[in-house]
């Protein structure tokens, strides 16, 4: 009994949560120790998730809480997708936490680390839970902690962005809660598998309205156009570690939530077409808005928006290939965008300015960071041999495989957006390398700042050269993600 307790996936949520709760007490003992708590928590999560991954690939694990069988108690659905996300969250979280040791110096440092850990916990909870209301609760954990963290710097922009984010985000959450109310009113249960089992018995506008509410609500976090106005503000104003987490994880969690709900609960086929179009529109708008930005973090934020559109498009293709491509793109974007934000964080920290012109000739002043930045950018554009290429390729492949004219048009538009993306990113590369620097002196980078970025860069290149590393896991995950019947079957134990 005791031996298997340590493998229980619930620990993925509970341990970081407990650590976060315990932080103030540790902070009383020694202030410096607090910095290492997120690292501890994420290290634990990473180990456990990696350990669980091979198991859940065969059979997803169902963990019921409080000792009652689903649907009577909340249950966790620990499938490959969940574990995949959990690995991503803990990996990026770990690296960002290491980065944060030296990066976060002023402000309420202790509280920052607590919120940081809680944000990641919320994200992990969302991807693991199998209960719609529980999902909402974790979603709120994620959202509220990110509102607070965006405002962490307490400067004008940060506060303003956080306020706007808060109003839009909580409006979204309100819609989700309303949607949950409708679902409960129709089915009298909150367990997703249970709802999914009964969903065919009801055919009513309430169902559709609930779905619309869910899409809108989660869409705010997932940055679907036109719900994404908070994104550029928040991502550009937050401390860079938080931008990395928000861009690398939080928005993907929103997407996960949308598609978990859509795939498992609803599954209106017509809405997928609409979402695919919306995804491409989001992509185009994001990339086009990024085109003329002069603020480096805003460029990255808008590009995140674009990438979200791409992922939404991939996931709404509605085939296993598409989902696999979408998941791949999520990994790409997580790795690349966190890499970019961490790099930029250091650049901004050193040059004290977010204007593109302040980056002139940084390639000479901080060669390694610039090199890694370049890798991240190339990967986002989708150039081989970086991770972005196989992911984009599989999306296009999946889209064209459907053979529908609509998808063909959308893919052409997507490629157009890639061109725009390429141009503005290449422009930044040129600014880094081919403009004369204002000063000659080189920056010394502390190891804690460099280490996470290097790891991310290596991952990007390694997976880019040999994507077979992920391929099977992704395909299997996509299958399980998509398959509603097996979800129900697994939850109710055959």
């Amino acid at each position, binding site marked *: 009994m005791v031996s298997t307790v340590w493998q229980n996936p619930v620990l993925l949520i509970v341990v970081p949560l407990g650590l976060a709760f315990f932080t103030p007490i540790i902070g009383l003992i020694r202030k410096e120790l607090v910095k290492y708590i997120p690292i501890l928590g994420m290290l634990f999560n990473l180990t456990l998730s990696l350990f669980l991954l091979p198991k859940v690939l065969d059979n997803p694990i169902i963990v019921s809480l409080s000792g009652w069988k689903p649907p009577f108690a909340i249950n966790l659905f620990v499938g490959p997708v969940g574990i995949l996300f959990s690995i991503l969250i803990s990996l990026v979280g770990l690296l960002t936490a290491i980065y944060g040791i030296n990066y976060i110096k002023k402000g309420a440092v202790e509280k920052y680390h607590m919120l940081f850990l809680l944000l990641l916990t919320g994200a992990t909870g969302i991807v693991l839970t199998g209960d719609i209301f529980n999902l909402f609760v974790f979603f709120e954990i994620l959202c509220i902690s990110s509102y607070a963290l965006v405002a962490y710097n307490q400067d004008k922009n940060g506060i303003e962005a956080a*306020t*706007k984010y808060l*109003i*839009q985000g909580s*409006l*979204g959450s309100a*819609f989700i809660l309303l949607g949950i109310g409708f679902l409960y009113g129709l089915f009298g249960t909150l367990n997703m598998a249970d709802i999914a089992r009964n969903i065919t018995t009801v055919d009513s*506008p309430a169902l*559709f309205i609930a779905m*619309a*509410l869910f*899409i*809108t609500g989660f*869409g*705010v976090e997932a940055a*679907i156009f*036109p*719900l994404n*106005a*908070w994104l*550029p503000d928040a991502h550009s104003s937050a401390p860079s570690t938080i931008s990395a987490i928000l861009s690398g994880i939080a928005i993907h969690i929103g997407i996960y939530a949308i598609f978990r709900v859509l795939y498992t609960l609803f599954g209106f086929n017509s809405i997928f077409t*609409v979402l695919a179009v919306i995804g491409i529109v989001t992509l185009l*708008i994001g990339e*086009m*808005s990024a*085109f*003329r*930005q002069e603020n480096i973090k805003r460029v990255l934020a808008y590009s995140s928006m674009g990438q979200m559109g791409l992922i939404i498009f991939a996931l709404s293709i509605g085939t296993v290939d598409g989902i696999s491509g979408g998941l791949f793109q999520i990994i790409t974007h997580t790795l690349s965008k966190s890499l970019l934000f961490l790099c930029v964080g250091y650049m901004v920290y050193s040059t004290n300015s977010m204007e593109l012109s302040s980056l002139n000739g940084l390639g*000479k002043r901080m060669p390694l960071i610039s090199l890694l930045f370049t890798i991240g950018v*190339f990967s986002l*554009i989708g*150039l*081989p*041999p970086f991770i972005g290429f*196989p992911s984009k*390729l*599989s999306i*296009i*492949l999946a889209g*064209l*495989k459907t*053979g529908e004219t609509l998808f063909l048009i959308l*893919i*052409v538009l997507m*490629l*157009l957006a*890639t*061109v*725009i993306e*390429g*141009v503005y990113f*290449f422009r930044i*590369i*040129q600014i880094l390398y*081919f*403009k*004369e620097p204002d000063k000659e002196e080189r920056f010394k980078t502390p190891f804690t700042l460099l280490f996470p970025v290097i790891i991310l860069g290596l991952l990007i290149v390694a997976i880019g050269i040999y*994507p*077979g590393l992920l*391929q099977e896991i992704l395909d299997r995950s996509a299958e399980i993600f998509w398959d509603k019947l097996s979800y129900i079957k697994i939850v109710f134990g055959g």
Partner: protein
Amino acid sequence: MTLQLILLIGFCGAIITYFAGKILPVLREIFAVAISLLLVGMIVYAYGRYSQEIAQFGFLNFKIVFTLNRLSWLFAIIISSLSALSIIFSLSYMKGKERQDFFYMMMLFVSTSMLGIVFSGTFLQLFIFWEIMSWSTFLLISYSKGKAVKAGLKYITMSIIGSMAMLVAVISLYLKFGTLEISVISQNIDIASLRYLSCIFGLLFLGFGVKAAVVPLHTWLPDAHSEAPSPFSAILSGILIKMGIYGFILMMYMVVGIKIFMTLGVGWMKFHYVFAWLGVISILIPSFIAILQNDAKRLLAWSSVGQIGYIIVGISMGTGLGFLGGTFHIFSHAVFKGLLFLTIASVEYRTRTRDLDQLGGLIKKMPITFLGGLIGVMGLIGIPLTNGFISKWLIYKSLFESNRMFLLLFSLIGTWAAILYGYKILHNVFLGQLPEKYRNMKREPVFMQIPIIILSLTVILSGIFPGIILKLINNIAFSFGLESLNVNMWGVVSETGTLNIRNIFFGILAAIALVSIIFYSAKRSWKVSQDDNYAAGAFVPVEKYNYTVEFYAPLYKMIRKYLKDVIDIFYCWIAGLVDALCNGIRKIYTGDIGTYVGYILFFLAFLIIIYLRG
């Protein structure tokens, strides 16, 4: 394993070179040269060992296949040797410049990725290496900063557009044939309809055409070639643009097969027909634009567009002779254009300028460079006993035999232009009066002399004995199912005497002998120093007496107004439009939270309306 080993050595060597440079600059140079020579050696060794290798690991679900056949060997040897020579040249050229580690790394990277392209046995690899080539080239083009930045952006923009089109084509091939292996696709090409193939060609035309700089897609080239570091310009002009041609040859002859290709097209707009005309336009207009240029490298860049036109005309004929000429021109253009760029580079290295209005009279100062330039220009113009003559002759001949008189005429007009600008560059740089400031100039360094000498010898030798390469090309043509021609050491033998360098060789020797006899026996002139500038007893200041400025002035007046690069202007207009559009789009994020809330409500309402209506 050899092919993979070659690529591995190339890529790893590039990275090692970079880190070696961090330790010791000399180490880096040794590494760079050694690796590039090693690549040449390995490719020479691979001659005749044509094979197919299936890689151990795939990419996603695709098989990775490396192939070596005659065509790819030909390209590989050109790529590897020209880049080796460029790297040797850079040893002197790059001395004292910043960020050399990066430069050498990228040089190796570009050439290895081009090797990757020609070794690709599947379209996927082709695309991957293509993209690697694109971005590594981009990083080198902008190397010199300043104007180069804009040139790089222009290049990469067009390049991305091209590769996106290519990507769609590649994936659609995969969906059609279920595989991306080039050999398998070419066997099953029959299952694709002509219409489908035409679409594929249209897309690939964008992809390959941007790199090959065929006329409507050429606008990046003059900027990029002139702004890139000069040794790299040699690679750019010598081989990189040939990669596009390689793609065309691959598609036309190997995958689709020339018989089907000749029938492709919409209505009377046959693809090969359009293609040939585009080639001719590429010859005609850019050659005249080249005359107008005053920047030596820009002139050569425009001339590259023109020369690419010859190749395209040659290969789009679909006859054995045309293919022979076109492919031979790939080789000869690589050699003489590489030579010319290196020549200009060595001039630029010493004089710090490449403005044709300011140079002149360098013949005494850098004789070897002059010799290189002379031979290069001779090759460019196509004077007999240089390889340029062989290829152009063959191309004209094939046009003649295919009865394409208009094409022939325009190509010939293009050659006149080539003569004009060839002479212009030769004269303005080396002949005429030496400007005062270069009086104490040193000769070119030895590492610059070696590549120039080697390339000059190649131009001459392959001009006298074209058979060595023609035989190889003939075999390639034969394997593509074209008619096999009787090729010997001296040229192409047929009843009509298609090409026989032996006769020409001796004929020219005789002519030279004759001319020199007349010249020396009827000598009436005496030697005058260039500075003997007396005008009715008054001393003319030396600086002003420089007639290289406004060379061909009357001609300029005549043609300048017709020769605006309309296409470039059009593209810039579109770019400006996109820019304005993008700037407009971002205004939707007004910063007003009320509006944002309105967006959210709108989205929800939108979804509800969708439902209520349908």
